[in-house]
């Protein structure tokens, strides 16, 4: 048989390369986006079998409706005081971001990353977790530290790599670490924290502890092999862990289609692993709280892990080194159909009669002032580029518990070279 002749009759193969719907200059229209109405998604029991909740991976848990009322089975029925605290922590996170972004533009630090539009994902989750549950964040969950009342000055010291920086200027700005706040050391390598969180949770379970772990990674990072390992381990050992995928639509310049979003949801990854999966409105603080609480109750009941896809939008550039107008329409963030998490909670509280526009404006002013004062306090410890803030020895400390001979020798050589250069 002449295979070559036969093939002539076949249509040529073609390679599909995903393309986002809107590029710079395009008019944005999200009306085609399938968004379920708030309150319509069912709420299974916390110990439900993953096989009985597959629909959850394709739905969208939403609590706040278009009139900003809390509706449906996922309404966590939080008291007003807690809601106000949550609102404040989200607003503080945004004020912190604004100030630190400006500090980078002023040359006070080398780098910064905002989480604008994604404040609910970390802040509301922190409210649903215990203070000593271990968080394995990516670089865009500063809200966890802020919701846990961690010192802003301490965070800024790290950003400025100044003499008060607990990390001794060793880490790129925003790669925080706080064991005290149960906030794991951030790594620049994407998705590595995923199996680590699962391992931490496995250790907690093996020891008969009651603490659980949670990780956060972006939708782009789900393409990493470590994400697959984490899901497999979490499933196999029924680890008490929450696997948060923050789907903010963009991984630097690549839209979520390059992580597989054209074919399915990220919550649907859970189906294949036999893990409970929830897809939620990540700009709805009450939905984030309710889903996290559901998942933590599930984990604490030894019923296993939960994968939560937080459907949200990255309003700002990826980092201070990025210009999103080069790859996406500037209209996107304004047109985003799930709105802004702070505005939505604010309007919800106003609707409850617990808040008003004047108090909100006053709070924003107060928080901006507070952040400014924190920045001033931190800047008294120095900012990046103003001299060497750390003792030179620290360069060699902490590679190992005890400094081996070759590092001592290199340290001494460095000192000698510095001394010689002064002559």
């Amino acid at each position: 048989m002449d295979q070559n002749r036969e093939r002539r009759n076949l249509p040529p193969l073609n390679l599909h390369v995903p393309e986002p719907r809107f590029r710079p200059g395009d008019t944005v229209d999200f009306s085609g986006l399938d968004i379920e109405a708030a309150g319509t998604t069912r709420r299974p029991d916390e110990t439900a079998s993953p096989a009985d909740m597959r629909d959850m991976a394709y739905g969208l848990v939403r609590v706040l409706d278009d009139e900003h009322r809390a509706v449906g089975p996922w309404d966590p029925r939080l008291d007003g005081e807690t809601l106000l605290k949550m609102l404040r922590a989200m607003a503080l996170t945004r004020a912190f971001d604004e100030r630190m972004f400006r500090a980078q533009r002023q040359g006070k630090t080398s780098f910064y990353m905002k989480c604008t539009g994604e404040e609910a994902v970390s802040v509301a989750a922190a409210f649903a977790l215990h203070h000593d549950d271990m968080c394995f964040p990516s670089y865009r969950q500063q809200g966890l530290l802020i919701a846990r009342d961690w010192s802003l000055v301490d965070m800024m010291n790290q950003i400025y790599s100044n003499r008060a920086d607990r990390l001794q200027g060793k880490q790129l700005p925003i790669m925080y670490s706080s064991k005290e706040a149960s906030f794991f050391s951030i790594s620049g390598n994407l998705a590595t924290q995923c199996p680590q969180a699962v391992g931490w949770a496995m250790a907690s379970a093996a020891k008969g502890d009651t603490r659980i772990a949670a990780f956060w990674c972006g939708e782009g990072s789900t393409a990493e092999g470590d994400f697959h390992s984490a899901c497999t381990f979490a499933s196999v050992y029924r680890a008490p862990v929450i696997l948060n995928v923050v789907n903010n639509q963009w991984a630097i310049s690549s839209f979520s289609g390059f992580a597989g979003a054209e074919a399915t949801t990220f919550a649907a990854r859970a189906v294949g692993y036999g893990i409970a999966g929830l897809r939620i409105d990540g700009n709805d603080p009450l939905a984030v709280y309710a889903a996290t609480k559901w998942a933590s109750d599930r984990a604490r009941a030894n019923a296993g892990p939960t994968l939560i896809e937080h459907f949200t939008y990255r309003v700002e550039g990826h980092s201070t080194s990025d210009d999103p107008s080069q790859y996406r329409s500037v209209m996107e963030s304004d047109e985003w159909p799930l709105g802004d998490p702070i505005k939505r909670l604010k309007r919800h509280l106003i609707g409850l009669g617990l808040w008003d526009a004047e108090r909100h404006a006053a709070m924003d002013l107060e928080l901006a002032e507070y952040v400014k004062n924190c920045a001033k306090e931190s800047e008294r410890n120095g900012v990046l580029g103003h001299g060497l803030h750390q003792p030179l020895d620290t360069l060699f400390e902490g590679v190992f518990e005890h400094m081996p001979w070759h590092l001592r020798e290199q340290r001494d050589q460095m000192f000698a070279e510095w001394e010689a250069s002064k002559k």
Partner: protein
Amino acid sequence: MNMVQAINSAMDVMMERDPDVVVLGEDVGYFGGVFRATAGLQQKYGKTRVFDTPITECGIIGVAVGMGAYGLRPVPEIQFADYIYPALDQLVSEAARLRYRSAGEFTAPITVRSPFGGGIFGGQTHSQSPEGIFTHVSGIKTVIPSTPYDAKGLLIAAIEDNDPVIFFEPKRIYNGPFDGHYDRPSKNWAGNADAQVLEGYYRIDLGKARTVREGEVLTILCYGAMVHVVSSTVAEMGIDADIIDLRTLVPIDIEAVEASVKKTGRCMIVHEATRTSGFGAELSALVQERCFYALEAPIERVTGFDTPYPHSLEWAYFPGPVRIGEAIKKILKD
């Protein structure tokens, strides 16, 4: 004990002493490991301390790092060193840097055990010696034993160490010391003085080399299975060489190396790993920098060739008695 039993005993001793020591890896649990190194441990300590894992090296090490951050002392196994590469990101970017990047807040007190080295007709992916990849990473210690006695003492010290340790086990000498004569019947450890392993706890500090044989005319630096190939070749040739088993590559016992080369004036380095950018290059540079005026001949390196590890031509590739013997003749001629 043979080397596998000694390694098993080290884990047994440490699991008994420290409830935070856990063992994980592919086939290490119920089955006891493909080389039997973890045999009986799950039965003795239970499934939450010794357990089988999915086949994902990045997962095994990633999970171990997380367990270490919790406060456990994990001893993960990578079935063959040839399969450690999927875990490189977790080892290089995470375990090695965790203490440094968190200024000591979090640490990775893990000991990664992995059989390595050739001489068993393992072909390309059951024979490699990737130690040079790890000695290049700051924050990791690399340890390679050559006898059952050392294997137990070094493994106990590695598990007790608060830093990540890569513990490469030369699988060719698991059951007996291999002298490089592949055509002769293989020996086992029975009756060998280095195989008289104490039952209980003892440790051999990391960073300390062992003088295998004292001599005057030549220093040979080696580790793993090569210690035995070198010793036997030297004995057969009747060479009065100083043989040093490095045992720990990082941090290296520089005093032992320097003292020996300054005494003999000649230095030869033998390892199975490929030559270019192998650990021998670092050894050679250290000796050249520190012993330059004592050297009477160029430093010789006998290593694996810069090719993937072959199957049928194994004995042409392996740095055996022929290759080592020729190098000894050459270095002594100068």
